[in-house]
């Protein structure tokens, strides 16, 4: 039976990469230390496969067709070239069998998502992965959530997708230890008059619910509240999917939160092996 062995959530902002060597700013020092914690947490969980929940940044999808949810069922994923942001890797392995199993389970549960036999990963994966898994050798199943091109899936539906994934993973007949990773957010508003405004209130409320519960309350955060917070704050949806997938007994710990120049940058780990 599949076992959700570990989980974490982290921002994936390109500013993380841009400041990878920044040591004279205490905020960045704390974020770098946070990634050390996340990496140790992931290694301790010994996952054999990673369910990676993030939003495509208009690379795999365009306005001609942008699914609310997508799932990758490929045996590998190329890296979408984003200049210096993109590590010099050929590809990242995928777990095709688990991907297809979850795709089918999702359809049975009423999630009519886009099933992707080919996809590229962008900075939603390639910014955090060098910190979390520099060997990039753990197969992933990418879960795409539309966070960028309205209308977006509701937070409630995101949480329900997470619950569907959690139940399906418990029934997965394989022996793999499964890691859940969500990336994105938290609050930010890009290329606007509001750029630079970080909604600490919302960010800290999200983190509080993840750490203290009830996690189901994340499903009640309104889309309007996220829009008010910023055009990129919708990426909190990825964290909400993860929250829905977590085992009931999982305990969250906030590793770091910093209101950076453009984005609320956060890291959280979850103990699932309880």
């Amino acid at each position, binding site marked *: 039976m599949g076992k959700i062995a570990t989980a974490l959530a982290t921002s994936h902002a390109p500013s993380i990469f841009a400041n990878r060597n920044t040591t004279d700013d205490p905020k960045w020092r704390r974020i770098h230390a946070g990634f050390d914690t996340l990496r140790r947490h992931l290694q301790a969980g010994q996952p054999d496969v990673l369910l990676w929940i993030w939003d495509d940044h208009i690379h795999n999808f365009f306005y001609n067709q942008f699914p609310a949810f997508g799932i990758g069922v490929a045996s590998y994923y190329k890296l979408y070239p984003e200049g210096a942001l993109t590590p010099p890797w050929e590809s990242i392995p995928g777990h095709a069998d688990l991907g297809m199993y979850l795709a089918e389970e999702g359809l049975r549960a009423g999630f009519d998502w886009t099933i992707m036999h080919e996809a590229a990963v962008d900075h939603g994966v390639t910014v955090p992965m060098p910190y979390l898994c520099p060997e990039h050798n753990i197969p992933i199943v990418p879960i795409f959530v539309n966070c960028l091109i309205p209308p977006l899936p509701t937070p409630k539906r995101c949480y329900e997708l997470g619950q569907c994934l959690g139940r399906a993973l418990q029934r997965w007949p394989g022996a793999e230890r499964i890691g859940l990773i969500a990336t994105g957010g938290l609050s930010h508003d*890009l*290329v606007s008059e509001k750029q630079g405004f970080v909604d600490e209130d919302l960010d800290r409320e999200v983190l509080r619910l993840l750490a203290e519960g009830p996690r189901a309350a994340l499903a009640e955060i309104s889309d309007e509240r996220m829009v008010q917070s910023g055009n990129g704050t919708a990426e909190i949806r990825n964290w909400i999917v993860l929250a829905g997938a977590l085992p009931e007994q999982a305990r969250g710990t906030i590793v770091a939160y910093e209101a950076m120049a453009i984005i609320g940058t956060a890291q959280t780990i979850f103990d699932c092996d309880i």
Partner: protein
Amino acid sequence: MSLYELHHLLYDLRRYPEVKEEYGHDREAVYQRYTLSDDELAALRADDIYRLHKLGVNAYLLASYTQMLGFELIELGDILRAGAEVERQRQAQKE
């Protein structure tokens, strides 16, 4: 469909190196392949980021485009706030 066409141009500039390369030396040839409004063309020709933003361009596509033009993401907030202030003053003078 016009904003869709504008988004298509910005998407293609980001995705296809050959489109980006052509845009570097012959923008008008690239514009002709998309159905763009007069306002959109004016904003593109002037590198008017504020006008592109007000036309409704998706923030992520606009971020990529402005970086292609040589802007740093961190400075865009100030640029757009300055653009908004100019517009407010223009409106105030009309009134």
